[in-house]
């Protein structure tokens, strides 16, 4: 009996956190903001406080930069304390649809852990998880571009804070993702001019990044959607804007 209880405790103990980590968050349902980015907990092993604080600080500042510079969009960045996704698979169709309806453009989470490199040497790793809601919605409908993914950044334990800041800074990447998210969402609601503007901006912003595999795929996707904005505008009988003009190219430049 005691063994069975212990076993049950182990099962519950491992399963419950995974379930509990994508907990509900009041920021998601906050009706005062129709366009928002959600920042979840940054979780850390006790020995990696330095890396965790650097990551937290940079993500906060990077998101403030996105909010400040994303022209024409009333964007809010809202923290979700206690929300800890375990990975991209948490963002299934039901969850992502709800986030989309609530005006969430992106959700970001992070973790810092001790890992070993291929030679077995200890390394510190800061992983940043992203879900770009409109792209994830498309991905769940069989489109191959990743809408939810984790980007790991590794550093030797002796790395100085200055270098950690360079390692984890996401300003350029978040700017590109935010433009892609706004553009993609505008495309879904047939706001062709705004979609085209943001998607072309996203395409240009991606060219300035050191791209990961996900970034390369997202860059291509932004380019494709920018073309879709022109095609959609041409086919829309209600639309009378510039994209209806003869000679407007599908490509941005």
């Amino acid at each position, binding site marked *: 009996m005691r063994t069975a209880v212990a076993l049950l405790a182990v099962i519950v103990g491992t399963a419950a956190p995974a379930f509990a980590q994508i907990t509900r968050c009041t920021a998601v349902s906050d009706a005062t903001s129709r366009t928002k980015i959600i920042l979840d907990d*940054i979780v850390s092993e006790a020995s990696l406080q*330095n890396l965790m*604080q*650097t990551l*937290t*600080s*940079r993500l*906060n*500042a*990077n998101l*403030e*930069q996105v*909010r*400040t*510079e994303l*022209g024409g969009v009333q964007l*809010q960045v809202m*923290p979700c304390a206690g929300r800890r996704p375990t990975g991209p698979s948490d963002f299934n169709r039901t969850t992502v649809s709800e986030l989309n309806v609530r005006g969430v453009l992106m959700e970001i989470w992070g973790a810092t852990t001790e890992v070993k490199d291929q030679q077995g040497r200890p390394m510190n790793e800061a992983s940043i998880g992203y879900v770009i809601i409109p792209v994830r919605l498309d991905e769940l409908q069989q489109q191959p571009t990743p809408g939810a993914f984790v980007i790991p950044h590794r550093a030797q334990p002796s790395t100085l*804070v*200055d270098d950690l*800041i*360079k390692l984890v*800074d*996401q*300003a*350029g990447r978040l*700017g590109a993702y935010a*433009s892609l998210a706004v553009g993609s969402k505008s495309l879904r609601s047939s706001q*062709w*001019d*705004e979609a*085209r*503007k943001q998607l*072309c*901006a*996203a395409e*240009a*912003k991606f*060219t*300035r990044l050191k791209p990961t595999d996900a970034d390369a795929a997202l860059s291509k996707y932004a380019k494709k959607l*920018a073309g879709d904005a*022109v095609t959609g*505008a041409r086919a829309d009988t209600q639309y*009378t*804007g*510039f*994209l209806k*003009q*003869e*000679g*407007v*190219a599908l490509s*941005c*430049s």
Partner: protein
Amino acid sequence: MFLRRWLVALTLLALPAHAWAIEIAVPCARPSVFSGAAVNVVVLPYSVPPSVRSSSAVGEQLGALVQLETVLSIAKYGSIGVTQLVGDAQDECTPEIVLDKLLGRQGGARETMRPGSGLILIWGRIFESGADLYLQSFVQFLRPGTTETVDVSVRDRMLKGTLSTQAFACAPRKIAIRDLEDIQRQFRSARLLYTQPNSSSRSVEIPDRGESLAFWVTDLRGDWVQLEPMDRGSNRKFERGWLQVRSTDAQWSLRAKMPELYFVEGVAGYLMARVRSNSQAIVDASLQGAESAIARYIEGWGANAVLGNDATTNGTPLAVAVPRQLRGFVALLRARGADAGLAEARTHFERAAALASHSSDARNLVAITQIAQTFRQPADAQPPRRFVDEVRTLLGSDPGNATVLGNLGVIYDLVLTPAPGAPASWQLSPADRGQLSKQRDSLKSLISMARRS
């Protein structure tokens, strides 16, 4: 230095005694400006992420020093108000809430902005690690209800340009702990009100907690400002006194560590010139101050930048692109339509566009100066027909941009109207003329909508 003193002297003579005002420790929940001032600067406390709580009050203290440094640098423009806010950045002390209140979009401000005046908001984030302080500042500038634009005349027509943004993040910087201690020491010394502009004279301490305190700035002498208490409902009374904004022993200047304060000085001069455009003397002096301060910012923006000083790759390209655009605006305004101003502005706009290639407004600024130069000095090898295609491509990437659309209408008119003295290569073939006329006609309703907007 001589010029600066001369400008200060000029403004002191030209303006009423109560041309500048400051208020310290104003609660964010009830922010305020000096509605009678032509340009207001509001400094929010530098915040720390909730999970990275710092033990010191360095965020608020840094905000207070930014305020004082700003007073000293922009007092020369006259008619300014500088307010320091205090409160919790996680609550009501966010730039969007404060701005909404100051613009009267939501209630809560004690005094709101007057239409037509200028406002600069400064806020930031800090993070302490070991012996270092990491900070990042953000700046927003505006005139309520007005988008900052510049006009470039071409023959009898006008092309317009706007900035890529009026709010941006500055480069994140590192300040060593010894400089942090200097901030705190400077903060303490900047809370003493002396009877004379001399640190050996009698002094009284201004409390750093509790109610807000407002002062008129009645004189400036070197690093000293004379303050006269203002009756704004405060119970605390002070005599007129002198405050030392920069300590004399410090080889340390806040502006050397935070070059963005030069940008604040520059944009304040630009806004002053716009707001007080009915006085040519004020416009000239303000634009000269703006030009010099923005140039110093562009020269020094990379100081202590943690992510490096390559603006194309360090994640904050707009922190250099927008000041360059503004410097181009100032060059055009100072030149009052002369060709030299156009050439200088084009150089700045091109550098800005290289940094902000995603911005159609950045590329539009380059296009309008190129077009103006082409029409002012017609050359055989540069027929203007190509500008139609260039601006159409630009509009294709930002189809809702009313400024670019309005310019496209002007460009069609310019290209289709024969230019006196233009080279033979500028002549359009009948087919080209027909095609361009057809394009212009098909855009007429869109262009007229853009002109109305």
